[in-house]
């Protein structure tokens, strides 16, 4: 316990406000060793229970402490296929690091062993030293599997099924694979080259990738099964339908969903104003509505696109904010102005229909609601206005109805999510599903974990037909 928690080296806040490069720079080998030595190698390893995919955390940390990075990454890869991604974007403070003994003893989760940073360290070490090996593929089985959506869920299923020797085709609606990791999460948090590496590994394994292919439109689920010869399908289409607040002024010029704003900037590269054809607002003053990772990403993107003021408006307090603590911290360092216990009432416009402000109400916290969080209650008569030219709505996503509407017999719940059993099997034979389309907007690691379970069940099913 004598060793202090190793700080993550980061790009200087003033500098990173105007570039898209990754903010967190990663541990040096010395830092990684020092951090690894902080782990007590607890017999009960409470951290493992906090990881949704149950990585042998003390095992891989011991290997780092021993200077055996190769062994460390091999241990992680038994359970996780995307360590470079999860090490960066997992909400560690509520998962593996929450129950860590070191954090408990030091009475702060901030002082827990930095498991995520160590995971990232070994994954980067493997990639940067070009040590990633293409997994061995079993002999051809002649069976064909279609995977719809190329987010973390779909990519994981593809790898696990291809390894068994089945033929794998991935379908992606966008022109680039990777799902939210590519269109949503910005470069400064998750470099696109890391995601591309995962895709390259899949193509090297012999998976076929069909981009610009919308299932439900270009081809329907039933056609894939009945006419195109697929023996099984996995649906990993994510939660890509932006929610709006249904307040006055939401369709004015200058109001974006976070999905649109982030897609323009990330996938369409609007931040590269010299080269990209897709435009994005040159905003001066921006309000982002919401308190999750999506809101942080939108706010920090607006900063980088040159906005002079970025306001983040959230109706509860910072404690209830679902965003990762690290992102909140980074956003503050970058000058994002936090408005807690406030909520917009309507968006205001000039005579031409362009946003010129927002009217908000102040809130206070009342009794806990169904989610266990204290319910925010509006304070009557507390209206006030903020001058703005852009509003980004980041209050969450629902699932896209396209597949549901074009696949008779596919059972969905009242939120439109596909109903799947514990093995990821849907109500239709040979069709499996996982990730956000089943869980509702969740996390990368959960999508990956669900993908692995579904892939195992699919491999078993395929072995028996």
């Amino acid at each position: 316990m004598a060793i202090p928690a190793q700080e993550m080296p980061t790009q200087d806040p003033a500098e990173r406000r105007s570039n898209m490069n990754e903010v967190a720079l990663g541990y040096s080998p010395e830092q990684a060793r020092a951090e690894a030595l902080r782990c007590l190698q607890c017999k009960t390893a409470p951290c493992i229970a906090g990881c949704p995919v149950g990585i042998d955390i003390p095992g891989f940390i011991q290997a780092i402490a021993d200077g055996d990075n190769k062994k460390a990454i091999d241990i992680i890869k038994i359970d996780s296929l995307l360590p470079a991604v999860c090490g960066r974007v997992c909400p560690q403070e509520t998962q593996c690091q929450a129950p860590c003994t070191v954090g408990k003893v030091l009475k702060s989760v901030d002082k827990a062993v930095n498991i995520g940073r160590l995971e990232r360290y070994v994954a980067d070490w493997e990639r940067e030293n070009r040590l990633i090996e293409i997994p061995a593929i079993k002999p051809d089985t002649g069976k064909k599997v279609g995977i719809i959506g190329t987010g973390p869920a779909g990519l994981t299923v593809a790898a696990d099924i291809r390894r068994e020797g089945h033929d794998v085709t991935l379908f992606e609606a966008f022109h680039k694979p990777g799902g939210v990791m590519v269109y949503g999460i910005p470069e400064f948090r998750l470099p696109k080259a890391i995601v591309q590496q995962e895709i390259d590994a899949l193509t090297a394994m012999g998976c076929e990738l069909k981009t610009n292919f919308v299932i439900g439109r270009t081809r329907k689920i039933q056609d894939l099964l009945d006419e195109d010869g697929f023996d099984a399908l996995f649906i990993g289409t994510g939660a890509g339908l932006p929610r709006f607040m249904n307040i006055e002024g939401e369709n004015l010029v200058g109001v974006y969903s976070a999905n649109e704003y982030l897609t323009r900037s990330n996938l369409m590269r609007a931040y590269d104003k010299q080269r990209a054809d897709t435009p994005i607002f040159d905003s001066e003053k921006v309000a982002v509505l919401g308190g999750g990772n999506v809101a942080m990403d939108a706010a920090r993107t607006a900063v980088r696109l040159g906005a002079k003021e970025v306001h983040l408006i959230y109706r509860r307090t910072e404690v209830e904010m679902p965003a990762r603590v690290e992102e909140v911290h980074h956003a503050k360092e970058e000058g994002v102005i936090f408005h807690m216990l406030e909520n917009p009432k309507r968006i205001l416009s000039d005579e031409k229909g362009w946003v010129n402000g927002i009217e908000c109400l102040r809130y206070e916290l009342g009794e806990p609601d169904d989610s266990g969080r204290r319910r925010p209650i509006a304070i009557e008569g507390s209206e006030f206005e903020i001058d703005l030219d852009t509003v980004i709505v980041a209050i969450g996503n629902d699932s896209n109805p396209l597949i549901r509407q074009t696949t008779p017999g596919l059972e969905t719940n009242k939120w439109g999510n596909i109903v799947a059993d514990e093995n990821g099997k849907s109500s239709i034979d040979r069709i499996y599903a996982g990730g956000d389309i089943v869980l509702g907007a969740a996390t990368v690691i959960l999508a990956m974990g669900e993908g692995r379970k579904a892939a195992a069940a699919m491999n078993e099913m395929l072995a028996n037909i």
Partner: protein
Amino acid sequence: MNKIREKKQLSETVFLMRVEAPLIARERKAGQFIILQLCEDFGERIPLTIADADPAAGTITLIFQAVGKTTKKLALMNAGEKIAALVGPLGTPTHIENFGTVVCVGGGIGVAPLHPIAQAMKAAGNKVIIIMGARNRELLILENEMRAIADELIICTDDGSVGRKCLVTEPLKELCEQDPKPDLAVAIGPPVMMKFCAETTRPYSVPTQVSLNTIMVDGTGMCGGCRVTVGDETKFVCVDGPEFDGHLVDFDNMINRLSSYKKQEAHSCKIGLEGDSQ
């Protein structure tokens, strides 16, 4: 990659391209569109209506007006070259049935998306009256194709260089005043034209369908950039539309939203869809 099989110039700024896209050609129905991209790294994604399709040849036909960056670059491409990406068919197909008498009103480039709808309405047994408008004779497209479908064809130009010298709303109003009045109007063209067509038919309670051409990114319901106010609701044009009840659409809001990037696109020339016919 989709190969351009054929290219034709229909007027000074309007081009027709027949492009290889076998799956889209097989699935598409009247009223649907594609999203096109010329470069997957930096190109923008733009929507264009599928004006026609030949499933046997595996091709679809696009008719577009060169108004800005992407459409102008596309206009410079030739048969044999390849378009980086085509996605589709997107959008909800037009509801086709035998309504009785259908008036199809097309303004400028709007005639292109109107063509497959008029064709399908005719095939469903409707009496199809077509009103086509353009600024002048030179800008009138698909006259022969439309004439082949129409039971009655009315051409209007702003300058009277061909057909009647009037706006398309004038013959539309006359048809609404007849007894029996049309059972349905379908209007496609610049937003202002659709707005005034809807205003024209409203007093006569002639149901009026319009096809909205909002700005889009993904075209699959993911971004909400294409949203419009229809009645009291927000709708996504790419999945809920592109066709809506013209009497419920908030056209002023839609026209405003179309101008979102005017500043950034100022470099591209002024000929917009807007100024094209009315």
